[in-house]
């Protein structure tokens, strides 16, 4: 018998029962995760994609992945946020790559008309300004300035060092200010 393989009978019944209990609690844990984060995840996805028609599909894909891989526990709320935003960020990047491959361009969103209120117009203008930034810079601005994650959590979410977050953020803020001022003059 190969000593490198686990013996079939070494798994205790107690562990199996605990696993079953954990599996039963998973939908509830996921619901609570959604309650805490969904609104902000939606804003981040919209900011990344700048295309309201794709936000639902991308977010749904990200949440499905999150459900499949949902850990039993997180070390802290920071780790929970980093884990979740990382999934959404990756799904957004996949979508942007697909869009690039198809050479799709963004048009004027369908819900924008001459009668649209100022809040809607401002939101669309901000999304357009964000779209001018590179995806990496956009992600940093959204996670730190819009959602309010600290540098460490944003770094963990994006899989980059803390210093890179700081430098990207500084450059992205400057670019965003320029984009805002151009849009405001129009």
């Amino acid at each position, binding site marked *: *018998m*190969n*000593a*490198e*393989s*686990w*013996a*079939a*009978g*070494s798994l*205790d*019944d*107690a*562990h199996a029962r*605990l*696993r079953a209990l*954990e*599996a039963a609690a998973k939908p509830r844990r*996921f619901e609570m995760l959604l309650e805490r984060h969904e609104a902000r995840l*939606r*804003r981040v996805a*919209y900011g990344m994609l700048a295309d*309201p028609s794709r*936000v*639902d599909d991308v977010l*749904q894909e990200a*949440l*499905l992945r999150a*459900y*499949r*891989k949902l*850990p*039993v*526990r997180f*070390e*802290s709320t*920071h*780790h*929970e946020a*980093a*884990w979740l935003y*990382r999934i959404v960020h990756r799904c957004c990047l996949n979508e942007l790559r697909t869009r690039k491959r198809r050479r799709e361009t963004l048009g004027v969103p369908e*819900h924008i008309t001459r009668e649209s209120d*100022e*809040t809607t117009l*401002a*939101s669309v*203008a*901000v*999304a357009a*300004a964000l779209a001018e930034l590179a995806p990496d810079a956009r992600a940093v*601005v959204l996670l730190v*300035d*819009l959602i309010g994650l600290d540098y460490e*959590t944003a770094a*963990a979410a994006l899989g980059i060092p803390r210093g890179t977050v700081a430098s990207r953020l500084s450059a992205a803020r400057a670019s*965003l200010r320029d984009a*805002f001022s151009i*849009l*405001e003059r129009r």
Partner: protein
Amino acid sequence: MTLNLDDLRAPPARPEFHSELRHRIETSERLARGRRRAAALVAVAAALVIVSAASVSAFRQQTKPVDATYVCSVPQLGGVYVVDVVGSVRGVPVKYGTVSVPNRAHATFSAGSTMSPDGVSLVGLDEYPNGYGADDQLCRRSHAAVPLGHASLRPFGAVTGTQGATIKRECWLAPTVTIRAHVVFSRSGVPTAAQLVLRSGKKLKPAAYLDWTPTRVVGYASAACSNH
């Protein structure tokens, strides 16, 4: 109009967004259950083959000491790479109604949460015939020189007896760890003594050490480990 990042308003979710999500999750879970069932059937078949082979050729039972070094990838858990160091002495059997489950001594270096489907024992041993192993998905054999000792580590616990006492530390380490295991077996192939060494990263930074027998476990750990 003055623009501000806070003006960004996400479009509202379409009415069927959550029902669609629930439906997709249920479908995905159903498929996963099917895959797990198929994998379990294969595992049972493989176990039957192994058990029958062992009964025919008992001399293949592991009785010689094992001294092996592995390099293991640690799955990410909530943004960090966590290895649980656990050592336990033999305990009294646990009774579930009329069923008595043996409470065996064990020692493991596990990643993720062992209570979750994603949790996995990287290297570990259990007081059971051939109860020693390494995860063949995450770990591979290595020739790295790792001394069998606890230099630069601090003792974090020692337990003795047969009441199932356990010592545990949670270590936040590099994405790759190196583990050396030296295990001695009885004539029936049950681990009777072991030393497990855990090192972190490419620089093999000392992280933890377990000196284990079924009735005595002593643990040493670095500052990267805590008792969460």
